[in-house]
């Protein structure tokens, strides 16, 4: 029971981390290696709004999400747009931006145990003999709702359909009058916002530390690769796979091996089935 509850919570938080990365890659084919940095930035911005400016918590969250989206959009507009299509440059460029943000924050003194966000709701309930605090429960609910909303957004709104069209075939989308640069900018903004949502939901459970930026990046890449780059469904399924495996390794082998399992999962998936669980790239390539 304990394994099921903690496994689910862990999986949902992994899925939240990975959604933004999956979205950006799925739509604009840019592997956003600054994802972890955006995650941390949102946490700190929210903290600043909350503590330094003394805003209402809810308002602070909304504002920090908007700021994050803006950072994402600017990043695309001024840097990534110039290197699109060049794999090496995309990876190096976005990774360098992420590195600059994270290490800049570290230099700016945002380190240590002093920075925390308050939980949404105090207290806990007992689920099948396992105590679960309300915040974790809320996180799961919001996570599920978020996935549902995203699904509805991409399937039933005009903008969502345009994004989907671009994800499938950028040139065809261009011919249909979809401005691919605008769409990619929006995708990047949404991706950054999703990273922010993940940060807002997950960070209250611990401290805001710069290192977790790298951790988030690695985990979201792991999830996306195991699920198949660019596939949301795959990302969610893979989040559950990795989430439960991690909890199982912690319970039965030891917490040292948590990261080893994640990395091993990536390496094994890439070797056995490079396109991931739900990737479709391989089949297309096969046709020569």
């Amino acid at each position, binding site marked *: 029971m304990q394994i099921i509850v903690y496994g689910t919570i862990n999986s949902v938080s992994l899925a939240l981390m990975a959604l933004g990365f999956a979205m950006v890659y799925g739509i604009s084919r840019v592997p956003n290696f600054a994802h972890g940095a955006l995650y941390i930035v949102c946490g700190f911005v929210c903290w600043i709004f909350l503590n330094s400016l003394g805003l209402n918590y809810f308002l602070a969250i909304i504002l920090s999400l908007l700021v994050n989206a803006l950072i994402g959009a600017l990043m695309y507009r001024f840097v990534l747009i110039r290197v699109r299509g060049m794999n090496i440059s995309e*990876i190096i460029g976005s990774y360098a931006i992420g590195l*600059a943000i994270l290490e800049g924050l570290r*230099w700016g003194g945002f380190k240590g145990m002093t920075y925390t966000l308050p939980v949404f709701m105090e207290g806990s309930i007992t689920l099948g003999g396992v105590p679960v605090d309300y915040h974790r429960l809320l996180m799961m609910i919001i996570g599920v709702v978020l996935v549902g909303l995203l699904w509805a957004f991409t399937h039933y709104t005009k903008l969502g359909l345009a994004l989907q069209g671009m994800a499938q075939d950028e040139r065809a989308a261009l011919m249909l009058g979809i401005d691919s640069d605008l769409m990619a900018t929006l995708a990047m903004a949404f991706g950054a916002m999703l990273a922010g949502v993940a940060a807002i939901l997950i960070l209250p459970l611990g401290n805001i530390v710069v290192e977790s930026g790298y951790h988030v990046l690695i985990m979201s890449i792991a999830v996306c690769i195991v699920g198949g780059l660019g596939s949301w469904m795959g990302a969610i399924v893979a989040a559950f796979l990795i989430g439960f495996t991690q909890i199982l390794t912690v319970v039965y082998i030891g917490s*040292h091996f948590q990261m080893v399992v994640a*990395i091993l999962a990536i390496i094994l998936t890439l070797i056995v089935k490079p396109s991931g669980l739900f990737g479709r790239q391989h089949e297309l390539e096969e046709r020569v």
Partner: protein
Amino acid sequence: MDIAQARKERIDRGIKVRSDGLYALMSLKELSYLTLPRFLLIAGMLSLPFLMPGMYWQRVISIVCIYSLLALSFDFLAHYVGLVCLGGAFFIGMGGYIAGILNTYFGLPPVLTIPLATIIGGALSTFLLLPCLPLKGVYFAIVTLMYPLFMARIIEAFDIFGGTDGIIGIDSFSNHWVEQYVVIGVVLGFVFGLRRLVNMDIGLIFTAIMDNDQAVKASGINITLYRALAVFIASSMGCLGGACITHIYMWSGISQFALDFSILPIAATVIGGAGTLVGPVLGCLILVPVSELLRDFGTLRIVFYAVILVAFILFKSEGIMEFVQRKYEQFERWTKI
């Protein structure tokens, strides 16, 4: 002058045109035109240890050379074989640990451990990367980024080879002159060796695999074999660097798998000029000392070179080497349209 009304015209210098084919080298002037840049590089590198003010900066030179080896291997793999390897740290760590193990557990002297670590490390790294070789583009990049992290966690989790403390008490080089001339010699050897390699028929195969692997398969050539060969060459270079760094610091530990070894060489390659093989060395000669100067600013130096990196990718993607080469070989002038 307005951009709309004029364009930049680039014309090869006559001396360049004449010296393109070796048979045309008629005069000493033309000969020196070709050899001067190469001579400058060799002489400059060899005289560096004398020019440095003290032990500290001489040590920096050794580190520059080790990063250069990594940058060279990155450049070779990325631009001549088409495998973007973000895991330079993996090679350094492998080489470092193997040299450390050979030295402490088996008591071999550095003269033996360095070549052994180069070959064993190269073979082992190639073997471990073998399953990833069919991967392309982003996928290969991500897997190789994971490998050093994976190795570090494994050593941590199993607590082998000294665990988080690393292996200590490794022999150093006999003196610092030997240390520096070994690494400088190795770097120069690899620069010219790789140049030669990529211009040979086998280099053509590597490039062909990068451009068009289907056609190479249809030509009856086993592409995995040649990829493995290229990875072996590149990873042995990294392992050689790792072995040297182990003997320089008399220590090998988990931090040899750190991201630093993966990122700085790439930055150096971008800055120095991708695909030139000399560029990465120049990039390291600039970046490493600068980051040493900025050591007092702590992590700000990482921000600093991340920003430089982005700036170069955006505004000067050709890199320093290509720029200098263009100036050396061509006239430029504005002409009216």
